[in-house]
C-alpha cells in the first residue's frame, strides 16, 4: 500500500529521484521480519523499501527521504536508493549492484568478534550474483565462519534483461554453494507454507550455528524496474509469467485463507487496512510539510 501510493503520487514531481518499487516482492521480507530481532543487522540494495520497512524502518522518514526533505532517514542526501534506520538495525543500502554484499560479511565479522547472539542479513537480487564481489564474499563467509544470511530475491530480471541472457539455464546456486560448503535453502515462492518454513529455518540456522547460509526465493516484480508504472507494454516480459504470478499472489491468498478460517477476521483485515492507510496518509503529509534542506547543506557531513 505504501508503494502504491508512491506510484500514484510520483507524477506530482515531488519525489525527484529514481524509485525501485518492491510491489510483488513484499512477502518474503515480511516473513523474515517475524523472526528477526532489532539487534540483527541488515543491509540491502537499490530496491530496499520492503527490506527497510520489514526491519521496522520508520515510514515517515522513508517518505520524507524520497521527498528529499531534511526529516528523511538520510536527511535528503540519499533518496529512495539509500535508506537507513540505525536504531532498527537497518544499516543502509548501495545503489551499485553487488556492492553491499561485502559489507554484510563485515557486519558478520563484527558480530562474531563481539560474540553477540545476533546475525547479519544481506538482501540482494539474482543480478548481484554476476558480480565478483558475490563469490568473493560467500567464500570469505565460509572460510571465516561468519553469521550471515545471504538472502537472494530472484525476480528473473536485471532491469529489462532476463536471467537466461545472463546466467546459465537451470543453474542452481543452491547446489553451487552447498558444494562450496554453505547451508542453503530455496523456495519457489508459490506456496506460503513452504516459503515460511524455508525462511524460518534459514534464519534459525545462522542464528544457532553461527555459520553463513544462502536462501533463495523466487518472486516477481509487478511494476517496472525503476519508476512508478507498469512497463509490460515494452514486451520484455512473458505475458504468461505475468498471469501465472498474478494467480499465485501470496498476500491475496493469505488474506483469503485468513477470511475462510474465521468469519470475524474480515473485520480485523479491514481494520489493518484502515490503520495502514492512516499511517501512509500521515507519512505523506509529514513528508510534504517537512522542512526542506538548505542548498548549503550539500556542504555538510563529509567528514566527522
Amino acid at each position, binding site marked *: 500500500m505504501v508503494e502504491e501510493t508512491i506510484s500514484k503520487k510520483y507524477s506530482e514531481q515531488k519525489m525527484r*529521484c529514481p524509485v525501485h518499487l518492491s510491489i510483488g516482492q513484499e512477502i518474503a521480507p515480511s516473513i523474515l521480519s517475524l523472526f528477526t530481532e532489532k539487534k540483527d543487522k541488515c543491509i540491502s540494495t537499490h530496491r530496499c523499501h520492503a527490506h527497510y520497512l520489514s526491519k521496522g524502518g520508520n515510514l515517515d522518514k522513508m517518505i520524507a527521504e524520497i521527498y528529499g526533505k531534511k526529516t528523511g532517514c538520510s536527511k535528503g542526501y540519499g*533518496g529512495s536508493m539509500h535508506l537507513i534506520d540505525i536504531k532498527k538495525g537497518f544499516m543502509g543500502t548501495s*545503489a551499485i549492484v553487488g556492492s553491499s554484499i561485502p559489507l554484510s560479511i563485515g557486519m558478520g565479522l563484527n558480530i562474531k568478534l563481539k560474540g553477540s547472539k545476533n546475525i547479519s542479513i544481506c538482501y540482494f537480487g539474482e543480478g548481484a550474483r554476476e558480480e*565478483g564481489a558475490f563469490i568473493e564474499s560467500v567464500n570469505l563467509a565460509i572460510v571465516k565462519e561468519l553469521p550471515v544470511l545471504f538472502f537472494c530475491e530472484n525476480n528473473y530480471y536485471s532491469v529489462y*534483461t532476463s536471467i537466461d541472457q545472463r546466467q546459465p539455464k537451470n543453474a542452481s546456486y543452491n547446489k553451487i554453494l552447498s558444494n562450496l560448503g554453505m547451508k542453503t535453502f530455496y523456495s519457489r515462492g508459490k506456496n506460503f507454507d513452504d516459503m515460511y518454513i524455508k525462511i524460518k529455518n534459514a534464519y534459525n540456522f545462522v542464528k544457532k550455528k553461527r555459520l553463513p547460509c544462502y536462501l533463495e526465493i523466487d518472486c516477481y516484480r509487478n511494476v517496472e524496474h525503476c519508476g512508478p508504472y507498469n512497463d509490460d507494454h515494452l514486451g520484455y516480459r512473458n505475458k504468461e509469467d505475468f498471469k501465472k504470478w498474478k494467480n499465485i499472489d501470496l498476500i491475496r491468498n493469505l488474506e483469503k485463507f485468513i477470511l475462510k478460517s474465521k468469519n470475524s477476521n474480515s473485520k480485523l483485515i479491514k481494520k489493518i487496512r484502515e490503520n495502514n492507510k492512516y499511517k501512509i496518509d500521515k507519512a505523506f503529509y509529514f513528508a510534504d510539510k517537512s522542512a526542506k534542506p538548505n542548498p548549503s547543506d550539500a556542504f555538510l557531513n563529509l567528514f566527522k
Partner: protein
Amino acid sequence: MKNNFANFINKTISLSMSMNKNVICFGLGVTDPKGVFGTTLNLQKKFGSARVFDAPASENSLTGMSIGASMLGTIPILNHQRLDFALLSLDQIINNAAKWHYLYGGQINIPITIRMITGRGWGQGPTHSQNLQALFTHIPGLKVVMPSLIDDLPTLLLSSIFDKNPVIFIENRWLHFSETKKKFKPSIRNLPYHRKISSGKNITIICYSYMTIEVLKASKILKKEFRVDVEIIDLVCLSPIKEKILIDSIKKTKNLLLVDTSYITGSFSSNLLAKLSKLDFEHKPQILAMPDFPEPTSSFMTKYFYNNYISVINKTLDTLKIKKRYKVNQNNHIHDKPVDYYMGPF
C-alpha cells in the same frame, strides 16, 4: 528531420559495424527495449546476436573480455549506463588495457572503446552522477574522450571506435537530449584533437562535455552585455593533450578560464592549468569546477550545486577583474531536468 545525440550515437555505432565486421557492441541493457537510452536500439536486429548482445552485471570481466578479444583483432564497444558502474572494472582498465601495449614493447594493440554515461540532476545522487574523468586521464596509455556538441559527435565516436588504443568515451546524460538538423556525415580523424568553436580576443575559455553548452550560452551574453569577447576551446579529447592550439589561443588573449565538470581537487583542469602556467597572463587564470563534495540526492540541496552559464559569466568577469556581475533570478529555474518533458526516473 531532427536527430538527437542519442540517435547519432546509434547511427555511428551502426556505421562502424557495417564498415568493419570485427566491431562488436555489448553491455548491460544493449538489447533491452530502451537500448541504453536509445543509443543501441535495433543494433542486434541489424547485426545479429553474435555481434550485439546483452550481458550480466560483471563489469570487470566484461572489460577483461573486451581486452582479450581485442588482442586478437576484435574491435569491442563496451557500454555502461553509468560511469559509476564501470568503477568495478578499474583493475582491467588500468592494469591491463592501459598497459598491454607498453608492457610488451608495442607489439599488441588494445583497440577497445568503453562508453560511460554520467548522470546529472533528478536525484542521481552520490553514486550515479560522478564525473571521474580525471581518474582516467591520470593513467598513461588511455585515451579519454568527452563529446559535447552534437555536430562533432559522430566523427569523435567513429574515430574512437577505430582508434588502435583503449578509449574511455564519457557522455553526459543531458547531452543525449540535444538536437540538430545537420546531416549525419562522420569521418575518421586521429585522436587526440581539440576544437576552437569560437574566436575572440579577450579571454580563452577551455571547457568540455556538458559545460561547453553552458559556456557557449555564456559567451553570447558576455559579448552583448559586457563587451567581453571569448575564445572557446572545446577540448573533446582530454588525454592525451595537444598543447599547441591551447597555447596559440592563450598567447593571443593573454587570459584563461578553465571550466570543469568535476570536483576541483585533483581535477583534470587543475592539472592542465599546471601545464599551462609556463605562459604569460594578463590576469591570473582561474578554474570553475565543482566543490569537493559528492552530489546530494535531494533536489533542494542541488538547487545551486551545479555550475551553469551564469556562473561561467561571473567567473569570466572575475578573472578579467571586471567589477560588474550578471544577475538573474534563478528561483523559478528548474535545475534538475535536462528538458521540460523529462519526468524521471532515470
